[in-house]
Every structure is written in C-alpha cells, then in structure tokens.
C-alpha cells in the first residue's frame, strides 16, 4: 500500500476539504494521538482588532476552537454524520498576533447518548503558551435541512 492509498483520518479529510473556513484560515492537520487532535495555523490578518499592535480579535480563537473541536468529534465517529454545536465556553488569556504560529488541540472527552463532549486549547506553536481554552458540546446526527426548528 502506497502512502497515497493509506486511508486518511476523518479529521484530516475534514480539514483538507473545501470547507468555507479554508478561504480565510489555513488550518493544517498535524495528527491525532490518544483522542487529541492537533492542527496548525497562522493568525490571519483578516481578524486583526488592533491594527497598532496586530492583535487579532478573540473571535478568531472562538471560531478556530469551535471548528477544531467539531473536527475532532468527526474523527471519533464510526461513520460521518452531521453535527451541530450546542454549547461553547471559551476563556481568553492573550490575543494572538497577526502571523503568529499557533497550534489548536482538541480532546475528545466522551459521548453520552447523542452528545459529544470536547475540550480544547489554542497555543503558541513555539513556546506552548496557552492563549485560549474551551469546552464544547456537540449534538450528533442533526437535521440535514435548516428547518429553523429547535434542536
């Protein structure tokens, strides 16, 4: 079996697809070990909040953590199915700076009934400094059409 024939991890497929997020944040799959998904990215200029310092808005961390926690859920499922974020709690310690090399790690905590529970961190890729932390809850097998109904 050649390298190109080795099945990709579902999270790798998720992050290499033409997901809308890839148009503004280049997220690179690094690996999965012990139920921890790691991706790498650079803080993009489009999210800058303070042009004098280059600091990006906290929304970048919220967006990346939601994406990576959701991607990690995909990686834990036996078959791909739609998921939806039900709750996301984020703590921000320091803003990333435009161009800063970052790692985002998402830990699968468990599934109970149809709810997946995740935690994650956004880190400086060189020093390991924690910039933001998050916990997220995701519903598995959500509707395939936007009916506007309650979950």
């Amino acid at each position, binding site marked *: 079996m050649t390298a190109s024939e080795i099945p990709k991890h579902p999270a790798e497929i998720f992050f290499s697809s033409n997901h809308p997020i890839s148009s503004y944040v280049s997220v690179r799959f690094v690996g999965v070990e012990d139920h921890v998904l790691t991706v790498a990215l650079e803080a993009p200029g489009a999210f800058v909040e303070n042009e004098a310092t280059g600091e990006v808005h906290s929304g970048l961390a919220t*967006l990346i953590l939601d994406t990576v926690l959701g991607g990690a859920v995909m990686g834990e499922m036996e078959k791909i199915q739609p998921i939806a974020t039900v709750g996301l709690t984020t703590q921000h310690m320091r803003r990333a700076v435009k161009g800063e090399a970052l790692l985002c790690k998402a830990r699968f905590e468990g599934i109970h009934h149809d709810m997946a529970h995740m935690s994650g961190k956004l880190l400086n890729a060189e020093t390991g400094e924690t910039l933001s932390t998050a916990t997220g809850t995701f519903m598995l097998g959500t509707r395939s059409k936007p009916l506007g109904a309650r979950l």
Partner: protein
Amino acid sequence: MKNSLEGAAFKIPDTPMRRWLQFDATEQPDVFRMTFDDRHIGNPFIRALHGGVVGSMVEMSAEMLVRSLAQPGQSVELVSSAIDYIRVTKDVDLFARPALVRQGRRLVFAEVWCWQDSEELPVARGNCTIRIF
C-alpha cells in the same frame, strides 16, 4: 445604571475583524447586524452559520456595549464567553442585542441574544465577561 447602548454617543471601530464579520450598527441603538456572506457558513450542506461566527458576533456585540460604558482612554478585553446555540441558523443576516448584567469596577458582565428572522425566535444567547482597564 445604564443598561444598554440607548443614547450612547459611540462609534464602532473600523477594524479588519469588523469588516470580515460585516458587523454594523442598526437603526435601533442597541441592536447590531452581521450582514451575511458565504464565508460565514459553517455547514455547507445545510448552509448554516459557523458556530464560531455566531460566537464572534456575541463577543463583538458585548464588547461594543462595554466600550460605550468605558471612560475615554480605557480599554476593554474579553475574558470569557459562554454561548448556547438554541436554534439552527441559516444563510441570512444575524442580529444581536447586548444588555448589561452588572458593571463592576474592573469587570463587566453582559448578556447577548441573537436572532435572524424574528427576535421572538432567538438562535443563540451568550454570556460574556469583559475586563475594563
């Protein structure tokens, strides 16, 4: 104590993040609008907004409320946010109404409700803690 942006002489800072989110004021002084763009999509199959985009809208709306309360020269910084995704979103504009929960000397607690079609049908709510310094 003032509990909303009503009557605030306040201008939204024009930052790259504001432009990316397409975040603007509305005719109602305490309601903000995110004008929908395809880049805000999180689930292409059902064309739902990205949860992180909704989260960013919650956070920016709460920050704008707190900026309106700050004295000249003071800065604001989001400490934490907790967001509940109440309904499925779709590919249309998103609105947010932030409200003050409590203003302390160094911290402000704010609540934000978001909706699309009708304020009676909220799609998300958030609680934000913001440092003022």
